């Protein structure tokens, strides 16, 4: 069953079974997005993800289908993250700590991907958000602008800057590997 009839059942009849299906369907994307925003801190990402779905449940009556349910959830997730960050007075440095940074001796795409994940933590938060939505979830610039409430031009700038920083990181990573090899 698609999202729309499930949403209608939640709005009209407070159907918990329908909401369970929606949470189960979208949890991976929302938790993955928040995991990147939270710099790999899984427990923190899950706390914010739970808050996201609770808010979604409370506000589901105001959902309009224009942008798709997942975009709407991403938008709530991003605002929940921003609000949690303000509430806990996180500094950029605190968030950029690397809770899972592990040195690996193996080489290959898996390690390169893990290294990129670590490099993502060094990016500014809007850059991380834009890159995640663009590449992991294939959103258009306009969709990202709606989700993150930035102008389209700002979204493009964040993507370009984030990509350039990561490319530079990848380049130095390759050089390092060549020297080691």
């Amino acid at each position, binding site marked *: 069953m698609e999202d729309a009839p499930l949403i209608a059942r939640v709005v009209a009849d407070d159907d*918990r079974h329908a909401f369970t299906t929606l949470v*189960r369907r979208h949890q*991976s994307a929302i*938790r993955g997005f928040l995991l990147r925003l939270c710099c790999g801190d899984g427990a923190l990402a899950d706390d914010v993800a739970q808050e996201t779905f*609770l808010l979604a449940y409370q506000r589901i009556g105001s959902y309009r289908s224009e942008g798709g349910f997942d975009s709407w959830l991403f938008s709530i997730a991003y605002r929940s993250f921003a609000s949690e960050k303000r509430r806990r007075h996180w500094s950029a440095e605190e968030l950029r700590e690397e809770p899972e940074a592990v040195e690996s001796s193996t080489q290959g795409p898996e390690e390169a991907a893990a290294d990129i994940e670590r490099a993502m933590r060094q990016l500014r938060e809007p850059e991380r958000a834009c890159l995640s939505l663009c590449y*992991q979830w294939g959103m258009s610039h306009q969709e990202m602008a709606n989700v993150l409430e930035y102008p389209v031009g700002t979204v493009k700038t964040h993507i370009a800057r984030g990509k350039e920083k990561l490319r530079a990181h*990848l380049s130095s990573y390759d050089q390092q590997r060549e020297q080691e090899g």
Partner: protein
Amino acid sequence: MNEQYERLESLLSRAPHIDDDGFTEAVMARLPPSRPSLRMRTIILLASTVTSCSVVAAVPGARRFLAEISVGLVSGSAATGSSLLVAGIVVALVVWGAMAAASSET
């Protein structure tokens, strides 16, 4: 340079699936108690209204009281002003009670 960007985009586009692992249950446990459905709330509201009207109609002298209020309302008589006030309060209480019953959590 382009090759590096392509490789970067391919690395960034990995979106590993995160297993639910009890996450959905944790969210559902935190939801507020369920409220009556829209249909049920409408039924409660209508039933409350019909019941209260029946009670008023069954009380001896209530019809005459209502008739007096209606006449007073039409003629603007000051004598029925206080009766009108009482009737207004009663109606407001009945509506408020029905609304509260309809929106209360089960």
